[in-house]
């Protein structure tokens, strides 16, 4: 297997990124970022060939090939803080496209467990990105990645929802199973047409937007973590992310 990527010129250990533990050139130009570090194994299994590049804290990176396209996968851990770190460091090593492969909790009744959501943008309900730029700045997916994800779902004959999600920092405060929480908080977002809530997407979109790289997100509505059907849906979601990366490559967007 030869999937090593040539290092950029004059790259030395001082360029190794603090958390993701990668040097410029050590990942493909398109990187899938699941929050769940367990998903990198699923990525590896879904590729024609793949190997582990590095692991540090919650950041595990695999690089592989699918149909001749080189793609990497870096887990970020759950939450906006580690997602913002992961995205920032991926940009610093030269990543051009970052696609979040995550789970979410739908808040619209027409979205069913196991459904896929392609996010066009995200409400900035987290605080990580407020340290970077005022709240008026939009957390928006790159339209080319949105289109690539749509085309990927179409190729895989998978239905999807397209729209806005909301990212926030306190899952157990607003989840329907919150104990002593405030699940009613979500009603205003339901009324505004927000499809789902998660803890990462707006952090990715803001960091990528500010740095001039393309970002997107395909989310899986996971209602019950031990639902057996979910495993198969997770495979479908990963396949869609990989297919989107291939489509970006076909379009010369990597």
């Amino acid at each position, binding site marked *: 297997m030869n999937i090593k990527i040539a290092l950029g010129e004059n790259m030395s250990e001082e360029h190794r990124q603090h958390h993701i533990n990668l040097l410029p050139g050590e990942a493909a130009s398109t990187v899938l970022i699941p929050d769940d570090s367990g998903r990198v194994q699923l990525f590896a299994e879904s590729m024609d060939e793949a190997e582990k590049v590095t692991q540090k804290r919650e950041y595990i990176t695999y690089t592989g090939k699918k149909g001749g396209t080189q793609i990497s996968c870096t887990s970020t851990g759950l939450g906006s803080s580690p997602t913002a770190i992961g995205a920032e460091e991926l940009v610093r090593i030269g990543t051009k496209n970052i696609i979040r492969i995550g789970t979410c909790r739908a808040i619209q009744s027409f979205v069913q467990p196991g459904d896929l959501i392609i996010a*066009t*943008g*995200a*409400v*900035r*309900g987290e605080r990580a990105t407020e340290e970077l*730029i*005022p*709240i*008026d*700045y*939009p*957390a*928006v997916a*790159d*339209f080319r990645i*949105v*289109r690539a994800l749509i085309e990927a779902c179409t190729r895989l004959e998978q239905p999807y929802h*397209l729209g*806005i999600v909301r990212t926030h920092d306190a899952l157990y405060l607003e989840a329907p199973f919150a104990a002593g929480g405030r699940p009613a908080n979500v009603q*205003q977002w339901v009324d*505004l047409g927000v499809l789902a809530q998660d803890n990462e997407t*707006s952090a990715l979109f803001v960091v990528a*937007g*500010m*740095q*001039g790289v393309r970002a997107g997100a395909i989310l899986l509505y996971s209602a019950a973590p031990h639902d057996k059907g979910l495993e198969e849906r997770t495979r479908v979601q990963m396949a869609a992310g990989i297919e989107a990366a291939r489509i970006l490559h076909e379009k010369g967007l990597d």
Partner: protein
Amino acid sequence: MEKQHHLHLLPGDIGETVFLPGDVSRAKIIAEHFESYKLMASNRQYNTFTGMYKGIKVSVTSTGIGGAGAAIAIEELVKVGARNFIRIGTGGMIQEWLPRPGLLVITAAVTGDGTSREYFPVGYPSIANLEVVEGMIASAEELGLVVNPGLEWSHDTFYAGSPLSELDILAIEKPWIDAGVLIASQEAATVLSISMARNCRGGVLLVSSGCHQAPNEGATEEETAQAISDATRISLETAVKLYKLDH
């Protein structure tokens, strides 16, 4: 239905796609690019022309400057049958690398406008419709025109974000300049946000003669007028593409 309060329009007076210039006099300039056109109503800053282009009915309504006036126009246009909104406007670029004049396809907007804030809570993104963005880019390519896609900063006070201001506008704009936002203007976020709120397609194509970092090195009036004409041609072809998606 009685005619709309500000626009003085009735159902049937307009096409599904409406172009929205801010400048009152520009409505007619845009309508002159149609194959035929007729003044449907004129009240306050709102001039509406409707005509035909490549077999479809299209309209243009001037909104005046600012989000508040544009929001009123969109709300009333929705009530009389509009489904797609394309703002054709001007602004001041805030990235020196952009061509002058520049033709910018706005993909999303910084919501520094009060109107977006009243429709959506803080933090809610103001996003252009994907099909409009793609339609503009494809149409520009077909016409052999160069467009740059990216973000716009919408704000409400012209004299706090223009080279004509006495304030240090580059300091005011620094967060947006550093983040790669392409242009400052006053209406994009409103047009995109209200389109989202009303389940319509919204898009914005901006023309700019120059950038705030080099206010004396802009394009000529003739070049800018040509760019506005080019923006109109792109918008008309985009309207045709949207029509084909829907019919």
